[in-house]
């Protein structure tokens, strides 16, 4: 296995061949913000929050899927990236109905954290106030589409880790939404094992445990990591 040397924000970094820029940065303690990325499932490269600048490339590249190469010169926090990240988060807030004050995930929401991180205190784009639904047909869980940012973490975790494939994306463009089963109410989907992995995976308050109220959503993210480790490396301790 060969090792590649590169620099991230002028800090020299050594990373194994085949690692992504995101992994290499993490190992070296360099923070790159992410949103749709979830360790243990395949990357989607959809949120565009982890885009970085690479010298010699005229395109911004997503850190979560771009592999390291010898001599790469990477910048993760240039003024341009800061500006684009902020716009990206603003677009997300304007697109859905995010009312933090009454959300189960308030104070424990990755979207909210990102808004703070990129310094977004309001959206410069007008709010769209889409008409979206809530599905509480499942005995234990609920999904509030108003808070969904279409990161597809729930889709991937259910398909790739639980193997149930309850979720998928329906429709196109701004009309996209997360659909359960064959477009059935969640509670009627036989494939659902009620494992709750999607609750743990969801970065916002979109998928939640019934009975939780404002600010009460907590996630057991370590469970996903444990499961993946257990399967891939056969380490069965937590």
């Amino acid at each position, binding site marked *: 296995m060969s090792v590649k040397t590169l620099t991230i924000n002028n800090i020299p970094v050594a990373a194994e061949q085949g690692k992504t820029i995101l992994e290499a940065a993490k190992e070296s303690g360099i923070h790159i913000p992410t949103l749709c990325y979830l360790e243990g499932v395949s990357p989607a490269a959809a949120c565009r929050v982890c885009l970085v600048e690479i010298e010699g490339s005229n395109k911004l590249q997503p850190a979560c899927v771009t592999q390291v190469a010898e001599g790469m010169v990477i910048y993760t926090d240039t003024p341009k990236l800061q500006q684009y990240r902020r716009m990206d988060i603003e677009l997300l807030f304007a697109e859905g109905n995010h009312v933090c004050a009454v959300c189960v995930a308030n104070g424990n929401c990755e979207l909210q954290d990102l808004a703070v991180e990129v310094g977004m205190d309001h959206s410069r784009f007008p709010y769209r106030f889409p008409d979206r639904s809530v599905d509480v047909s499942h005995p234990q869980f609920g999904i509030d589409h108003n808070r969904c940012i279409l990161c597809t973490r729930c889709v991937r975790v259910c398909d790739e880790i639980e193997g149930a494939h309850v979720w998928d994306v329906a429709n*196109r463009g*701004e009309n996209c939404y997360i659909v359960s089963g064959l477009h059935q109410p969640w509670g009627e989907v036989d494939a659902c094992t009620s494992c709750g992995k999607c609750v743990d995976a969801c970065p916002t308050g979109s998928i939640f445990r019934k009975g939780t109220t404002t600010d009460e959503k907590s996630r057991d993210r370590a469970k996903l990591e444990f499961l993946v480790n257990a399967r891939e490396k056969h380490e069965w301790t937590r």
Partner: protein
Amino acid sequence: MDLEELLEIGQQERDRQQQKKTRIRCCTAAGCLSSGAETVKNNLEIAVIEAGLEDSVEVCGVGCLRFCGRGTLVEIDPNGILYEEVLPDQASGIISALSEGDKNREELPRQSDRNHPFFALQMPLVLENSGKINPERIEEYIAVGGYQRLHHVLMEMTSAEVIEEISKSGLRGRGGGGYPTGLKWATVAKMRSPPTPLNKGGVGQKYVICNADEGDPGAFMDRSVLESDPHRILEGMAIAGYAIGANYGYIYVRAEYPLAIKRLEKAIQQAKKYELLGSQIFDSPFDFKIDIRVGAGAFVCGEETALIGSIEGKRGNPRPRPPYPAESGLWGCPTLINNVETFANIVPIIREGSDWYSSIGTETSKGTKVFALTGKVSNTGLIEVPMGTTVRQIVAEMGGGVPDGGKVKAVQTGGPSGGCIPAEFFDTPVDYESLLKLGTMMGSGGAIVMDEETNMVEIARFYMEFCRGESCGKCVPCRAGTVQLYALLSKLLNRQANQSDLEQLEALSYMVKETSLCGLGQSAPNPVLSTLKYFQQEYLDLI
């Protein structure tokens, strides 16, 4: 099937055609069919029988005769008369004119002027058989030399030689990007596919895909090629398969092209019957099969990774590249994906040689390009011109300018991914680089002419509406950004916008362009940026 049999079929077909003194070619491509070509053809056939001319006159349906704006088109061979806007009840007049000359002029449809630049400046290469042969009969394709190049390639050339020939020709992808075709072929040829349980460590499977998803508003070049000369695509794909080591091909056609699908199906069936597709073609070790996959009409499925996902039966979502399809495409195997028109160029390159091909066009862009000329222009239709023809020649001379003497303001190329060329740049030669420099692109070949009356901000909004509706919704900048861009353009057009909205429009355009995942989002702001650049005053006037 061997070469002798192939030549024999061709000879028989030519003999059959020569038994009749006159061939009346009636266009049966989708454009003319929609203006009643089917009835015209039937009436012509009836008129021939009524006049007792069955022994000397043949009426046949052919592919596109180019002048699509003036359908139904009927051409008389050998005297070369092209009748335009033929109505069903004019059929008998056309037949009687064959024997009596055109003394009953008023009963005859108008004739096209064959010396008009619209025809004179064309250089048919991709369209060489279009409008000449019946696309539903393989014998007619064989009669004009069809499948002989495939035989030549299989018998006389190594796959490396084929790739070398394509590389030397300078052919570039006609799907929009202009990627050198030879280089793409060479890359896929060098790839090793992952071993499968049945094929451990072997060369494994590779695929050839023909991208016939043509979704740009105003573009119909690929459709015409498929409807007019489907066998040319099959032969081109088979040659590509031989060159890169693939024995399976898919043609991905959009469901909105039912006639193209029907003719392709027929063509594949006929080619299979003559063993020109299938196992051990021309008794060589080369197998090649082709299947059709019908898209459900999403523009984004023209993007190569989304298209591959769609063939695999998944949702048509683009995925990040690399890995490119050349490395990991259909079902993870190395895959060559080219546009319809790209494949249509293969046969003439092999036949006439790369030197000949590369002598056509400009320094960086070789060969010809088919454009679908539409919009505010007198002559609409399909044109094939050598690269390097100026925009002025295309719009003013061939297109005949704006009807009723209006002034041309700009031409939009590249559809929703492109931009406009304002009238002051009409002396620009059409090639990949020159168009990019102007902030637009060749695209797949739609050319929409706009006159002085056209509101450019409205045009920008039209394309943004298109992209907003066609975004797959996977990535944030494209899904949510196009919505906001559309809202900003509407705000402008409703005269509710101010200077800061205009600044936001521009800033968001760059953001969407630079951060979107696939080409759709990356190019969706182009019509806005291009009109902002050349027609800024129109935006300012709305504030």
